[in-house]
């Protein structure tokens, strides 16, 4: 996963942190002189995709009974598809329009629909921040020895757990409300160390699993680590396709969903989208494999202990440094996530106190963090997030590339001065409803449903735009006559 971005975070962050006013080009294309080079993107993608949630996601693959081939081949393929999505979906639009997602959406959908999108984004950010609090709270459990949740737990496991989560949540929320700048700098400082700590988890995990020679890796991987057996109780069995689609769609909202327009609009060249490979293959390949290995070691030492708890997992491998890594990974990613959730909700009522909103969001995230169901089903939550936000990416894609080629107008809301483009709104709502129906009725699993959902949104937006623009043109033509 990632610590992600929402709107209009960049400029607000700069203002609220008390920096010199810096033009973030929120409502204009990024000019030539403000564009960024390749190195910036490699660093940014790598830093953002080694997050606290990687420590949860890796073990959950193993809990789903994945085999070595399905896991590694699935990750290689899925991450490649994610990189290609950034390169061929997001970057070409970002480097042509050079607008933030927010502004691009506002031009197409209108202010009110964008507000609705931000609300959905804010809710998702809040839940994700809760998952990161959970990750960090498990580090406290190593020392305070309170009962921590099992893989199948859905409710808080006791007063110790609740107290640890609330303490973590209160600390994270206060820091997010007060000191975004400090933690953002700390996150950048910690990034190289954190990447190497994940590598250390992997190397130690491999040795603990009995690997003594690199040449024996595949044998150990297939026979001892990812054996492809039955999944843990209550978990779905994962195949190559599950892993591939999860790796591809885990950041669906960012690439195909176009949230990274805001980031890649600064790129000098569209092919800088390829730098997402640094984040994918370090964070969503190496880190997931390493975290998965830690869980394999736990199952080897105590097959009855199926709990996925990053704190104990990391402590067993790397001692106190491992615990610090869990705390830092959770903290540095929960902080911007809370901050961005606050910004998303603040956009509903411009002028309201971001400080207060961030604290309220932090409280809500802490409450969700108490319930382990969210974290223990993180794979489902991430897939759900992508499914809900992806349709807006499809709307932008069609509006930017297809409508002008069919003789229709782009940026309908801006051209007509409307605050709600019902064609986009309806395409979004119908697509999400159809995807949910497919999942709830058992016709498709949540990991796969976003692909047909994308095509459905495209078709719906095309058809509804045709209808809308014809209806809009008719009175205009009548008036002109």
């Amino acid at each position, binding site marked *: 996963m990632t610590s992600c971005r929402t709107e209009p975070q960049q400029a607000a962050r700069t203002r609220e942190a008390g920096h010199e006013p810096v033009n973030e080009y929120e409502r204009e294309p990024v000019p030539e002189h403000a564009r960024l080079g390749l190195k910036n993107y490699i660093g940014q993608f790598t830093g953002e995709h080694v997050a606290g949630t990687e420590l949860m996601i890796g073990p959950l693959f193993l809990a789903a009974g994945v085999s070595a081939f399905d896991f590694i081949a699935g990750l290689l393929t899925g991450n490649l598809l994610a990189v290609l999505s950034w390169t061929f979906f997001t970057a070409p639009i970002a480097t042509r329009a050079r607008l933030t997602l927010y502004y691009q959406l506002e031009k197409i959908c209108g202010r009110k629909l964008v507000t609705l999108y931000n609300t959905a984004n804010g809710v998702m950010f809040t839940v994700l921040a809760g998952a990161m609090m959970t990750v960090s709270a498990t580090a406290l459990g190593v020392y305070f020895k309170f009962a921590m949740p099992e893989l199948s737990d859905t409710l808080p496991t006791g007063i110790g757990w609740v107290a640890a989560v609330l303490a973590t949540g209160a600390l994270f929320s206060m820091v997010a409300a007060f000191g975004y700048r400090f933690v953002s700098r700390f996150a950048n*400082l910690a990034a190289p160390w954190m990447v*190497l*700590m994940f*590598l250390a988890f992997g190397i130690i995990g491999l*040795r603990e699993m009995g690997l*003594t020679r690199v040449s024996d890796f595949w044998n150990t991987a297939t026979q001892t680590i990812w054996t492809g057996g039955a999944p843990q109780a209550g978990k779905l069995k994962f195949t190559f396709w599950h892993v591939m689609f999860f790796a591809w769609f885990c950041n669906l909202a960012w690439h195909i969903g176009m949230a990274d327009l805001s980031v890649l609009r600064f790129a000098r060249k569209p092919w800088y989208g390829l730098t997402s490979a640094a984040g994918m293959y370090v964070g969503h390949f190496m880190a997931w494999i390493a975290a998965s290995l830690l869980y394999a070691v736990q199952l080897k030492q105590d097959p009855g202990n199926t709990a996925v708890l990053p704190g104990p997992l990391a402590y067993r491998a*790397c001692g106190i440094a491992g615990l610090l890594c869990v705390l830092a990974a959770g903290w540095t990613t929960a902080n911007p996530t809370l901050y961005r959730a606050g910004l998303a909700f603040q956009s509903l009522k411009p002028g309201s106190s971001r400080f207060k909103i961030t604290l309220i969001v932090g409280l809500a995230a802490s409450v969700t963090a108490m319930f382990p169901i969210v974290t223990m089903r993180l794979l489902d939550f991430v897939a759900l997030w992508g499914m809900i936000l992806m349709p807006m990416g499809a709307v932008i894609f069609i509006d930017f590339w297809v409508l002008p080629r069919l003789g229709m107008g782009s940026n309908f809301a801006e051209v007509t001065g409307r605050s709600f483009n019902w064609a986009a709104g309806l395409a979004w709502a119908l697509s999400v409803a159809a995807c949910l129906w497919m999942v709830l009725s058992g016709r498709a699993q949540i990991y796969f449903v976003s692909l047909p959902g994308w095509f459905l949104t495209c078709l719906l937006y095309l058809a509804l735009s045709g209808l809308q623009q014809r209806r809009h043109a008719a009175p205009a033509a009548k008036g002109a006559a």
Partner: protein
Amino acid sequence: MKTIAKIISFIALASAVALPLAFFADRLPLASVQSGLLAATILWFASAPFWMETRR
């Protein structure tokens, strides 16, 4: 000062890789690796702020 800090940071990061590799090669027990990783962590956070640009 910056150069010394950079060297210390580099040693810290190199240790974070070398120590687990030493464990993998059966050259170091896990307890020593864990202590070494903690030392590397402290060294990194003590030295990197002197030279690393963290404002993005």
